[in-house]
Structures are given as structure tokens and as C-alpha cells.
């Protein structure tokens, strides 16, 4: 277990999440992709903390990331609900009236 390997895994998680965020049509699935990206960020933060600068700052950072994740997800659910109610759809592809 080295910094490099941990970062590699984090990069993998981030990229997989990005793939999901881009390829998924259902809002909730897009959110899952985003979560997975955040998962990678968490892992990277931990790696940096442990291998480079084990200061309290790093811990607070992790805490902030986790908070952000929660908050974003809460908003995500709210928005998905809103969309579902107003358009009877939870697909991002269906919500393309606003363009150009």
C-alpha cells in the first residue's frame, strides 16, 4: 500500500463514477455516478493525509467531503422528486426543452 496505489484506486473509482455520470439517463443513476466520484475523492484525501501531511486539516477535509456528499445527495433527491412531479419522468434525456 503506497500513495501511488491508493491514488490509482481513487482514480479508478473517480473514472468509473464519471463514466456513470455521463452514460446514465436516470437521474438517480447519475447521482450514483457522482457519489462514486466522491468516493474516489475520499480515498484520495485519505491517501494524501496519510502519506503526505497527516495534519488535522486533512481530517477536516474528509469531513467536509462527506458532508458535501450528504448535502448534495439530499438536494439530488429533492430535485429528482421535483422533476418527477412536474414531468412524470426521471430521465435527463426527457428534460431537454431548454436548449439553444
Amino acid at each position, binding site marked *: 500500500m503506497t500513495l501511488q496505489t491508493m491514488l490509482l484506486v481513487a482514480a479508478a473509482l473517480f473514472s468509473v463514477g*464519471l463514466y456513470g*455520470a*455521463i*452514460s*446514465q439517463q436516470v437521474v438517480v443513476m*447519475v447521482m450514483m455516478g457522482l457519489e462514486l466520484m466522491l468516493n474516489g475523492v475520499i480515498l484520495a484525501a485519505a491517501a494524501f493525509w496519510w502519506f503526505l501531511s497527516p495534519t488535522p486539516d486533512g481530517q477536516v477535509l474528509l469531513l467536509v467531503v462527506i458532508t458535501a456528499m450528504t448535502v448534495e445527495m439530499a438536494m439530488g433527491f429533492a430535485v429528482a422528486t421535483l422533476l418527477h412531479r412536474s414531468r412524470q419522468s426521471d430521465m*435527463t*434525456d426527457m*428534460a*431537454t*426543452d*431548454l*436548449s*439553444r
Partner: protein
Amino acid sequence: MTGLLWACATVPAVVGAGLCVSGRRADRAAPTVGIVTAGVVLALSVAVALGRPATSAPFLPGAPFGLAVDALAAVVLPAVAAVTLLVLVFSAADVSGARARFTGLVLLFAAAVVITVCATTLPTLLFAWEVMGATSYALIGFRWQEPHRVGAGLTAFLTTRTADLGLYLAAGAALAGGAGLALADLPGLPAPWRDVAAAGLLVAALGKAAQLPFSAWLSAAMQGPSPVSALLHSAAMVAMGGYLLLRVSPLLGATSWAGPTAAWVGALTALLLGAVALAQRDLKQLLAASTAAQLGFVVLGAGVAAVAGGTAHLVAHAATKALLFLAAGAWLTALGTKQLPALRGAARRWPLVGVCAGVGALALAGVAPLSLWATKDAVLAGAHEESLALYLVGLAAAALSAGYAGKVLWLVWQRLPADAEAGYDTEEEGTRQVRVLQQAPLVVLAAGAAVLGLLALPPVAGTLRRALDGSGPAPGLVELVVSAVVGLAVLLLVRVRPLQPLPGWLEGWLGLARATDVVVVRPVLRTAEALARFDDRVLARAVTGAGRGALRTAGAAARFDDAVLDRAVAGSATASVRLADATVRADLAGPDAAVRSLAAGTRWLGGWARRTQTGQLHQYYVSAAVVLAAALALLLAVR
């Protein structure tokens, strides 16, 4: 005395402007006012001719409005003033309708002539010079109801103005040479600028004097009323061309080429326009061509530094030709025609007019001892000193003048044909009468035409020559005799053997007008039209096209919509026309195409910009990722 000089210039100007502005209301009083003013001017001019004042007023920086009466001006100024007065007297009886405008313009013209004669700086000269041109335009086109007369004025004005550009050039050269704008300083200019100044002045003078190749305008100018022709096209304006050359004769002499050039142009004009005059069938046209030819002698004189002779010829010719023009005008008003065949025997109907005209014609023919005989020889003497060829050409020209003068003389004194009335009223409704006021000036002018030769004969000639600082030779006795014999012989020859019709190109003024039309006017107009098309179709449309293109919705760029196709089809007809233009001026197609593609490009870009906004979220994600990756690459690449 300077006050008198200013008055001499401003009185006719102010009165003339006032008459012009007051319009038809002043018509009744105008002739009287005009005659009185002209009389005052004559008196003033005589006074200043004797007093020789010089004065100046602030005008342009470094170039005051300078007026001065030197010997040359002292001779010419009274002559011009006198002719003006006589012409106004004549026209008081001759011109009808809008007399205020006519008199006003004549007085304005007279003021300009006074200033021209007395000008000591280039701006002053140009000032008056251009006003002469403008008033001559207005006077030639005096009867504006008839478009061809206005057109003739336009031709006259534009031709003389073309030549006037030389004065602008000369002014620039004077400044560049650092000599200032005074006429007297011009010969002192350093080498290249001196030549430029000389060339500019030469061109300007040749244009006004209707010398080759500018002569054609004088033909057109005959559309003006006869008094106008008498004043402008004999005594004053045309003469001013010759006068200018006489005045700057030192400058011409200071260059190696300007004098001979002027001399040859003058001589050739005298010869060729003499031939032209011989071929004319219209009295005024004949007189006009003769004017150009006679001015040729003046120019010749200036070119060979025979200033005194030139001056004398100028003055004598003014009297002679004004006389003839007024006579022609009297006949025109009375008989309604100026066609020579129709004027057969006209002299016999009004003997006084006939006699006066006869004196004029004889003088013109160079019959001794009338005026032009001696003055012309004074010039030719100078030419002889310069070169024999020049002298011979001049002599031939003198013979020609005897020819056309004789043609007129014999014609008008022929027996009145029975069917004379048939030829009348071809140009206007004749009055069949010649009034006293029309006849009186003729007498005065005839006297002048007869005796003014004294200026070129001893003892006056010597005085004059000394006053003019001239060193030109006096005519020898042999020359005087030769020319008198030639003149008389030709005159008699014409009497014995009436002329055969001469070639059309001579009657048509050497095709000068046509040539100008083909070489200058048409190309300019074509260019103007082409440029206007270019401006409308290419430049302006390109810009509006760019604007429209940017405004156009960008969806149009994405799909090649019907409107575009429709326009393309509908526009193909105009496009083919445009294509023709484009092929003719391939270089002009460059900016056109460029700006068009710019317009299209903006339109396309607008569409592209909006197409990035697909509404598809995953595409936003992809674009964000791609752009950020590119930014990263850029950051790492550019360091």
C-alpha cells in the same frame, strides 16, 4: 490711392452681389445701375492706372490678399473696364429678362477680372480666377430654361477648372520651394519647384485662354448670350489666360522649357484654330475659334518674352473681338440667326453696324494700318528672334486670320438676297431692329480696333516696352510690310475665290470636344458608375450582409434552409450580372468574397455556439471534461 484700388475691386463685387440677390425685383433698375457701376469702375481703373498703387490685406497665413497696379495692369485694366462698360451698354438694349441677374453676374465677373489683373499673390490670383470661372458658368448658362446652354456652361467651367488645378499645383510648389506665395517671387524658386510652378501656371493659363488642347470649351461657350461672349470670350476671361502668361513671363523665362512650350502651343493654336475658324459656318463659332487663335499670338508673345507686343495684341484684340461679337449679337437679336449663309448681306440692313463690323473684320485680317496688324507683328518679331519656324507658323496663322476675317467681311457686305427672310429666326425670334444703345458701343469699339495698333508702333511701343521691362525687339519694317501684304493678299484672294467647304474635322473644332468626351469624360463617368456599383454591391452590402448574417438565426447555418436556397435561386440572375462585373474587376472580388465569408462565418459560429447548448446533460458533462482536459494539457504544455 489704395482706397481707389480696393474700390475698383469691391464696388462691382458688392453691387453685383446685391443685384444677384435681389432677384427679379431689381430687373428694371439693373441696366442703369450696371452701367453706372461700370462707369465708376472705368474711372477708377483709369485713376489707378495712373496712380499705380499697391496694397494688401490679411488673407491666408503667409499670403496676404495683395493687389497692385503695375505697368502691365495699367494697360489692361482700363481696357477691360471699358469693354465691360460698353458691353453693359449694349446689353441694356439686347438682353431681356432677368436683367438683374445678368447685370449682377457681369459686375461680379468684372470684379474678379479686376482682381485677377491686379493680383500679386497666388491665392489672390486663384481666388479671382475661380470666381471668373464660376461667373462665366452662370453667364453661359444664363438662359437656364434651355438645358443645352447650362450644359455648355458646365463644359466651359469644367475645362477651365481642369486647367486651374495647375494653380493649386503651383501654389504647392511655391510653398515647397520656400519662396512664399507672391507671384513676383516665383522665378526665384529652386530648381524642381520652379519648373512645377511654371508648369502649373502654364496649364492654368492655357486652359483659360482656350489654347490647345483645351480649346473646345470656347465653342460650347457660344451658347451664352452674345454680350457675354463679347466680354468673357474676347476681352476678359479668355484674355486673362494670355494675361497671366504675360505676367509670369519672367518665370517662364527662368526655366529652359516653359517659354518655348508656351510659344509653340500659342503658335500652333493660332494656326490650327485659325483653320478651324475658316471652316466655321456659324458666325459666333468662327469668332470663338478666331479668339483662341488670336490669343495664341498673345501666348506666343509671352513665350518669347515679347511682353509689350503681347500686351498690345491683347488689348487690341479685346476691342476688335468685342466689337465683332457685339455685332454678331446685334444681328442675332435682330435676325434670329448667326449662321453665316443666312447673314448674307446683313451689313447692308444696318449700315452703321455693318461699317463697324467691317472695321473689326479688317483689323482682324491684319490689314494695315488697323490695330492687329501692328500688334501681331510686334509679337511675331519676338518669335522671329526665337526661331524662324515659329515666325513662319505665326505668319501662316496671320494669313489664316485674314482668310476667315475676309470670309465674314465679304459675306455680310454681299447684296441682300431676295429670300433672306427664309434663313432668319432659326435660333430665336428676331426683332428686326438694332437699337441705338446697341450701336453706340460698336462705334467706340470700332475706333479702338482701328487705332489701338499704336500701342505696337513707335513711339508708344517703346514707352510701353520700357514700362514693361521688356527687351523684346520691335518689329522691323520688312516684317510689317510682309504681314500687311500677306493679310491684304489673302483678303483679296478670299474675295476673288470664295472658299470651298473645308473638312468636317476642322469645322468640328479638330474633334477636340469628342476627344475629350471619349478620352476623359466617358471613362470618368464609367469609372464613377463602376465604383458606385462596387460601393453599393460590394462594400456596403458586404457590411450589411455581415450585420444581417450575425442577426440571422443560427439554425439556418445548421440546416441549409429553404430560404437560403430560394434566395440562391432567385439571386442567381443578379449573381450572373455581378459575376460579369467581378470578372471585369477581378481584384474587386477579393474584399467582397472576404467580407461575405466573414458574414457567413459569423452566422455559422452563432449557430455553432448555440448548438453546444443541446439540453443533453451528458453532453455538458463530456464537454466540461474535455475542456478541462484541454486546459490541463495547455497548462502543462505552455510553461
